[in-house]
């Protein structure tokens, strides 16, 4: 056996080279006539989705003669939020940075208005929903550009077989592929009865009660369907209202039939619950189904993504839009605007949706019937109703309609799931409401 001895210098050189290769971000060099641009995209969990954004940027960069560097930043452990906070503080970093939900408002004073880009995109692709306006606009100005990458609805993903067998509900009939929903009976009462039946049958609904976004988003949609707001649009406290009491009473009944460790669930727990075959329903974008397709195909074949149940005040679905923000400190704003316009074209959006297997949702109303969602399977059509093609539910975010900077606190502190859990665990209604009121008062500080 021949062994080659590696000298210390060779080892150091090899390590340095491999480290450099590992950390190297995609770098697109062109003739460089129109300067440089640096972009921080969200690192997509779908394996090839990043390649599509890279290709689209490259296509634009070659045409515009701009030198572009892209970093893909994970949202794992809040890395992307830390990057946004650090760049805002340092007034230095990427020119364009992915930021989701509350971040455009949180860093509004550091962001360049992008009215021209968004208005042109709306003209081409149709209007955006109310939540995108609520999170992306301030004083009539667009703070950031709605991003297709990462935007998602966290509606129900049900097991066809279990819902039929245990709750006598045919989710495919209720939400037929290629046709409008027939979901008038899909109400909060029906949902609760189904949750009870599935729990009795040994397959409880997998809804988290933790402090991460999946738990908070579900709570948000349920509260909104009862008209329950902790703080209203004017910024007034509205905790001690009948609507909030009704929502808490509903949640108490629901919590009784959820898995006992649901208070400790994070955003991965519900996915595991579905994929392991232990639950009949979860609230999630199609990522759980996509993983099941790979790891547990027999489960994936039985999954159907559909609309949220309706409550006394309407049918609301949890929606999390992502944005692309353009920092004021950017040195190449014109190139950035041009790139953002390119990424908001219908053709680009279609490519994003296709590359993510239907996970990414465009914000624009004309873009909800792309063929990707109709074709995905098994079972075929499982994602047809995911993008809300018939607009039969209001897409919303938890803590809406409170002013965004206050709502962000309610959302990040998971106040909705906390009060639901406190009340369900035996705290008196008025004590729970008083606690929530105290918390919300604290969130109002400026």
């Amino acid at each position, binding site marked *: 056996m021949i062994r080659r001895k590696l000298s210390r210098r060779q080892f150091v050189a090899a390590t340095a080279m491999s480290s450099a290769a590992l950390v190297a971000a995609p770098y697109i060099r062109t003739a460089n006539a129109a300067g440089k641009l640096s972009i921080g995209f969200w690192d997509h969990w779908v394996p090839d989705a990043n390649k599509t954004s890279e290709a689209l940027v490259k296509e634009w960069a070659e045409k515009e003669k701009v030198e572009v560097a892209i970093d893909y930043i994970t949202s794992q452990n809040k890395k992307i939020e830390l990057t946004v*906070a650090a760049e805002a503080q340092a007034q230095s970093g990427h020119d364009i940075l992915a930021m989701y939900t509350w971040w455009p408002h949180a860093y509004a004073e550091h962001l360049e208005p992008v009215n021209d880009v968004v208005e042109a995109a709306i003209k081409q692709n149709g209007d955006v929903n109310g939540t995108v306006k609520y999170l992306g606009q301030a004083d009539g100005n667009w703070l950031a550009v709605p991003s297709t990458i990462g935007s998602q609805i966290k509606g129900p993903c049900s097991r066809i077989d279990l819902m039929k067998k245990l709750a006598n509900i045919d989710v495919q009939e209720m939400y037929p592929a290629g046709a409008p929903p027939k979901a008038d009976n899909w109400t909060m009462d029906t949902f609760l009865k189904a949750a009870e039946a599935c729990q009795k049958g040994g397959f409880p609904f997998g809804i988290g009660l933790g402090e991460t976004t999946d738990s908070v988003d579900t709570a948000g949609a349920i509260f909104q369907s009862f008209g329950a707001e902790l703080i209203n649009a004017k910024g007034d406290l509205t905790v001690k209202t009948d609507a909030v009491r009704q929502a808490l009473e509903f949640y108490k009944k629901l919590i009784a039939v959820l898995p006992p460790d649901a208070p400790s669930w994070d955003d991965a727990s519900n996915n595991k619950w579905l994929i392991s075959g232990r639950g009949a329903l979860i609230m999630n974008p199609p990522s759980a189904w996509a993983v099941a397709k790979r790891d547990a195909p027999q489960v994936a074949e039985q999954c159907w993504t559909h609309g949220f149940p309706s409550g006394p005040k309407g049918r609301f679905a949890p929606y999390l839009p992502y944005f692309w923000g353009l920092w004021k400190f950017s040195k190449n704003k014109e190139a950035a605007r041009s790139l953002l316009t390119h990424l908001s074209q219908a053709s680009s959006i279609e490519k994003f949706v296709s590359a993510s297997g239907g996970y990414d949702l465009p914000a624009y109303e004309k873009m909800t019937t792309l063929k990707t969602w109709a074709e995905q399977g098994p079972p075929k059509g499982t994602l047809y109703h995911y993008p809300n093609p018939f607009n039969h539910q209001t897409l919303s975010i938890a803590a809406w309609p409170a002013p965004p900077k206050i709502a*962000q606190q309610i959302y990040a502190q998971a106040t909705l799931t906390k009060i639901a859990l406190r009340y369900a665990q035996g705290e008196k209604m008025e004590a729970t409401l008083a606690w929530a009121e105290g918390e919300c008062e604290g969130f109002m500080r400026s």
Partner: protein
Amino acid sequence: MADVVVEQGRLARSAGTRKRASLHHALKRKSTVAFLMTLPLILLIALLVLYPAFYSVHLATLNKSMQKFVGFGNFTFLFKRETFWMVVRQSCLFAITAVVFKALIGFIVAHFVHNIPAKGQRKWRGMLLVPWVIPPAMSTLAWLWLFDPSYSAFNYTLSYFGIGPIPWLGEAGWARFSVILVNVWYGAPFFMIMYLAALKSVPEQLYEAAAIDGANWFQRIWYVTLPMMRNIIAITTLFSLIVTFANFDIVRILTSGGPLDQTHIFATWAFRVGIESSDIPLGASVSLFMVPILAIAAIFILRDINKRGNEA
């Protein structure tokens, strides 16, 4: 006049020579060389520790949008928050319980290892240090899987004995137990190795004298071992208290502060408030609140060490 000038020149020359000689002498001194060699590190620490520390004090005096100076406004706001006092209580509970158990387990295990014959001792020392050597962010992930709601290996094993399932991270009591358990698992080897070093430095003659006086095992520990280890116990306790108070990774990975904020400690709550809720000044104020608590603990523990030093 000329003489004087010559004299002055000679004087000046001799003073210059003396200065050069003393500089030369100073440079030859080991302590000066050591100081110069550590100077880059001192400067690095100043840059990476002192600057952020003062910057966080500055941040804690700003309002939420960081545009206005509010003095102690953030602290007075915090003092009125129920959740803040809960976090203070939990941080104390977490740190004190974890440090006590780490010290106790470290002390017992150090004795066991000390009594192993020298030949096999290195292997045991190495194996027992493993939890402390693995980066906690990684080892805590393994613990998270052991506690996992859907796939908990503990619950799976307990089910064979008809026990459980236990909501390890879903119920406040169990969640606190779990985060403290992981912290003790991670930190006990540090105490073990420090105590083992201290044990090895206790002169054997003292035990022989105690044996002649008829001391039993407890009396040997109480009257010989513990007094000889007092300083090392105090210093390790202080060091561990600081590190445990400032812990972030274990709680963040296992519970993120839940359920119902009942496992939040200073660092995790500061992150929740500062980064996740975009209120950096308030987050800085939360984390700075650790300083007075640790300062008081340090004064008590270190003052005790000085006393003993004087007595000696």
